[in-house]
């Protein structure tokens, strides 16, 4: 579909480890339209970062993709060779990582890294990018970093955490892509900085008309920033809806549990967690991976993983409680 920038269909990713195979991604379906802001929510270890790494094709050597396709602007990137891939990345996407310290190479200056990024942003078509330094300086300036000239000669170790993250955003600004992936961009930052960084990201995306994938485990962030949101659990997308809708009417038991876990400022009472833990990826449960923790689990849940189906306008759920677009709950 042409208005989709990104379309991941039925992606499986396995990791070969000593004791066997970790079946991390179990048929992920995920898409982003041009100019859309999508959130990806899930707890630690559910496979969010793996999905992104698969998209970038920077999975480690011990990973394999036994099934599934990833379409970027209509092209299946899993079938491209390295030349075509480099071309794609040159005009493809930017990524902001969770830990800005490890996202910046410690032995090169900011200027050196920016220089290379800008240089290759035109893709392997060989076009010379003029005025690299000016582009770099203006990107740093837009990211609200003080003294951009000096910043170019600085090493990441000399900057604070907030500044490093803003440098990463400056990388994204400098290269004007259609897709920005922000993987937990504010998790490791102070409260006061979080807001600034988030606002920067929003401005950047809006100004360039780019799409945004915001990966986070913070529901509050998702609510503020995104138009549509996916909920992920143990290697599957289990619910997807327009943001406001999801918060108003969560269908999947896991999503309901998540929303109930958020402490409320008013109303009293304790927030409830969700008992249990994410499954062992070496021996994942047959069927729905949330079934062992689900209070509504019944017969079909242990047979096969439920597919993502439409239950409402633009609202999809992967759960046997909702079949054929109707609610099918056992206990009202």
């Amino acid at each position, binding site marked *: 579909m042409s208005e989709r920038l990104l379309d991941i269909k039925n992606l499986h990713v396995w990791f070969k480890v*000593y004791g066997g195979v970790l079946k991390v991604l179990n048929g992920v379906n995920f898409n982003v339209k041009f100019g859309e802001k999508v959130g990806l929510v899930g707890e630690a*270890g559910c496979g969010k970062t793996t999905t992104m790494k698969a998209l970038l094709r920077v999975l480690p050597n011990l990973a394999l993709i036994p099934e599934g396709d990833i379409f970027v602007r209509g092209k299946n990137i899993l079938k491209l060779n390295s030349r075509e891939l480099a071309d794609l990345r040159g005009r493809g996407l930017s990524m902001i990582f969770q830990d800005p310290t490890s996202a910046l190479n410690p032995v090169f200056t900011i200027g050196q890294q920016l220089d290379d990024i800008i240089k290759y942003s035109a893709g392997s078509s060989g076009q010379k990018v003029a005025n690299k330094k000016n582009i770099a300086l203006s990107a740093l300036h837009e990211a609200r970093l003080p003294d951009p000239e000096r910043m170019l000669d600085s090493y990441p170790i000399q900057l604070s955490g907030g500044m490093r993250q803003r440098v990463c955003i400056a990388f994204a600004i400098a290269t004007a892509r259609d897709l920005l992936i922000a993987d937990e961009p504010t998790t490791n930052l102070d409260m006061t900085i979080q807001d600034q960084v988030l606002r920067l990201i929003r401005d950047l995306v809006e100004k360039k008309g780019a799409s945004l994938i915001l990966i986070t485990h913070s529901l509050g962030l998702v609510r503020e920033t995104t138009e549509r949101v996916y909920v992920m659990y143990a290697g599957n997308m289990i619910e997807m809806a327009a943001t406001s809708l999801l918060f108003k009417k969560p269908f999947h038991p896991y999503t309901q549990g998540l929303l109930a876990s958020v402490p409320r400022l008013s109303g009293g009472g304790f927030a409830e967690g969700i*008992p*249990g*833990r994410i499954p*062992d990826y070496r021996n994942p449960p047959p069927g729905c991976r949330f079934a*062992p*923790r689900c*209070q509504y689990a019944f017969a079909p849940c242990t047979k096969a993983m439920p597919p993502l189906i439409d239950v409402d306008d633009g609202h999809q759920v992967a759960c046997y409680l909702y079949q054929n677009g109707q609610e099918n709950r056992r206990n009202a």
Partner: protein
Amino acid sequence: MTTKGILTASSLENPWARTLDSLKKTWYKFSRNWLSVLGLVMVVTIFFLAVFAPYVAPYPQHSGKFVDFKSKNQPPSWQHLMGTDTIGRDILSRIIFAFRNALLMAIVVLAISVPFGTLTGLTAGYYSGTWVETVIMRVTDVFISLPPIILALSIAAMLKPTLMNSMIAVTVSWWPWYTRITYSLASSIKNEYYVQAAELTGASKIYILFREILPNCSSSLLTKMALDVGWVTLVGAALSFVGLGEQPPKPALGTMIAEGVERMPTQWWIALFPALAIMFVVLGFNLFGDGIRDALSPEEA
């Protein structure tokens, strides 16, 4: 809803079962790489040969004063699997007996240098920033400025050539490396929260050093110790190659190689087999040490 637990309730009650369980886990981690198991087999073989040398060697009397010019310079055969040397002694038997002294040296050297080096390193690391650290580390720097083999050679050369003196020489050259490694581990561990917590609750310095910091260094130290048995043997062989250390007619791997080198290439077996024996020791302890590292490494998420 089932919760996935690792320890069942019953094993929590019985402390012995817990120890057995962790031993089993350690063995599992160790044995995942077949090379480590091979190393373990080699190490056990070496120990066995060393301890039971008089019973295992085909010609145990050849390890002492023995000459038999009739059988001198025999190439490997069924009677002498590794041939005989210039005065008719069976090389295989001499190698087995040489393992004794080699292992003895390694054990003695490590038994002294490891505690001493570790202690000084712990102290220097914990008291970093004070004169204690400066003194200890500068002295260590001086010893480290020469590679251990050269320092050991110089010291051994100055003393009378006996096994004991060569052990002293190697020990003196070896301890600073343990100081170094413990120092860098201790100085980074000391900033961990659990150490600070212990300090706050008023634990004594001795307690902190031995119960908080040292156990966290132990995996690196134990790995290094396993590997070092091989390397100390190598240094010991280098010393005896030059004539320091165990004197003839007692067998030593280095001396045997030195004798053999003169007879190259016609009587190649006299030099080759002791050299292979040293390789066997170094390889065995290297593989074993790698296995120890795997076995002691924390589980990865």
